[in-house]
């Protein structure tokens, strides 16, 4: 979804990505001649395209992405839980980290009032999914889960 307004967030993003392109170009100075040709070309292209986008914003020929609806707190919570899950997988092991992360995601994703029935139903279903997929990957596909 896009809106017909000046794309200021897109312009800010473009400035950041121009910085990324320039940094990629600059870092390529340390590479060998063979290894630096492509990074330099892509870095230059990225800077050039970012500048073109800024010009288009200045000329008013862009459309901005629609602002998302809903709770940003829940969004941030999902991102944090997923990150924590990724880093806890090794030290805690698969089952404890996954059970904890799934419980947290269940709490974040539920918008209805909690009752004993929904808690048992949703909790039981999630545990069932965890057990089934653990069995599939660990026992049938022989993936060495931590």
């Amino acid at each position, binding site marked *: 979804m896009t809106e017909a307004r000046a794309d200021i967030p897109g312009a800010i993003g473009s400035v950041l990505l121009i910085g990324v392109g320039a940094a990629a170009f600059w870092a390529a100075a340390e590479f060998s001649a063979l*290894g630096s040709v492509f990074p330099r070309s892509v870095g230059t292209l990225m800077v050039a395209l970012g500048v073109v986008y800024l010009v288009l914003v200045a000329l008013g020929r862009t459309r901005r992405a629609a602002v998302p609806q809903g709770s940003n707190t829940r969004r941030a919570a999902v991102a944090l839980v997923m990150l924590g899950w990724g880093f806890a997988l090794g030290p805690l092991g698969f089952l404890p980290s996954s059970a904890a992360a799934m419980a947290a995601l269940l709490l974040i994703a539920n918008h209805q009032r909690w009752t004993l029935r929904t808690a048992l139903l949703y909790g039981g279903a999630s545990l069932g999914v965890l057990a089934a997929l653990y069995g599939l990957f660990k026992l049938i596909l022989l993936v060495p889960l931590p």
Partner: protein
Amino acid sequence: MGSLDYLLAALTPLNVLLALAGVVAGTVIGALPGLTATMAVAVLVPFTFGMAPAAALIALGAIYTGAIYGGAYAAILLNTPGTPSSIATTFDGYPMARSGRGDLALTLACLASVFGGLVGAAFLLLLAPPMATVALKFGPVEYFWLALFGLTLIASLGEGSTIKGLIGGCIGLLLSMVGVAEVGGDIRYVGDFKALLGGLDVVAALIGLYCVPVLIDLVATPVAHLESAQRVAGFRLREAASILQRSKFNLARSSVIGTVVGILPGAGGSIASLVAYSEAKRTSPRREQFGKGEPDGVLATESANNATVGGGFIPTLVLGIPGTPPDAIILGALLVQGIRTGPTLFTQQAPIVYTFIWGLILATVIMLPVGLLIGRFAFRSIIAIPKAVLVPSVALLTVLGSFAVHNNAHEVQQMVVLGVLAWGLGQIGFSASPIVLGLILGSIAERGFVQGHLIGGARGNVLAEFFGRPISMAIIAFIALGLLWPWWSARRAGKVQARDD
């Protein structure tokens, strides 16, 4: 032996059973995000070592074709490509599911996959040796231009700005350079993170870039994750058949594109489906609807990616060069069976190879009832599951899928970080698809570019190496067309609007 004898040899009860089991196993594995067709074939290949060569090949072909089709389920219902081949299926499949037409999208995906699979197998049966010879004419420079062609398709795929799409492609290219360089051996953009030395894994990145943003947005509102259809309409076969009838040219063109791209070693189903999608959009009278739930988009991508199965077997069997990664594993299985691939395979071991091709056709036909039944079950299940349970379940699949690639927790971390990055970029209008395309095509483009540069340097004329070969020139013409088409199309639409006003 005649062709009918080979067909009858493929129709033994054991072969039919193997084809059925292979299609079901492949479809289920392909439907799980993170488990690719390559992985499905790799995991199940040891089961075929004790079989007769033709039966083993039929089982492997059935697993492969089922897995490529299975990728469409997650793409349509969860906006997460089950396999890289179904990236482009998310573009219109998920919007269809969100608007209550997920069952129709799944039926169309099944019919298109069967059609594409049959076209690919027919090419394999009739034209294998001459087509493989053409594929051999592709050198490093042609692969470079082919990768660049894939990247310029971003221009026609982007829902919003072409420039933003191209910047996204550059982000993907930069991500593809992380780790030890294939050419030159430099360690690039790794910083202090030794876990990045091996580079970013495409499958883990794919799961993160597509699936994590969906999870993040799913929890934000109490709105249902998929709209249920107004009435339960079964398989919606009649509706699907009329769409197929209307889009027969799209279906045929996409299947041929899939077969031809499948023949090119290393190109694979992801490029085939993107090229077919781009062509379908470019030529459709309803091109404005693409990306918003246009059935033609699903038809194009699903027919093309299943056509790569037959196409990919052409260089594998005729030249011993695998057309796609699963073909490489099947090639290994052939060697275990004592089958020597090469131009003489079709004459010296004709009974095995022709029985296999008919077996592949059989497996593709079996995919029709199997796919429709599994699709209906999957759609009803996903609709019925409460969002609060779906979110942790899908999150678990993403973690398992990215871990299982190399049995490494670092890839789970990469997956999440890239996913959060993709969500952030999505908020300012940079979509995930160009980034994914850049990531996939980056190594092909760089390898072709550097090798072409070296060959041109050795011959004393780099420019002639890049611009003086006929196949290169043809691809460059397509690139120019891909870049100029959106601009020309918008200009023409503007003129028509002005005339109407």
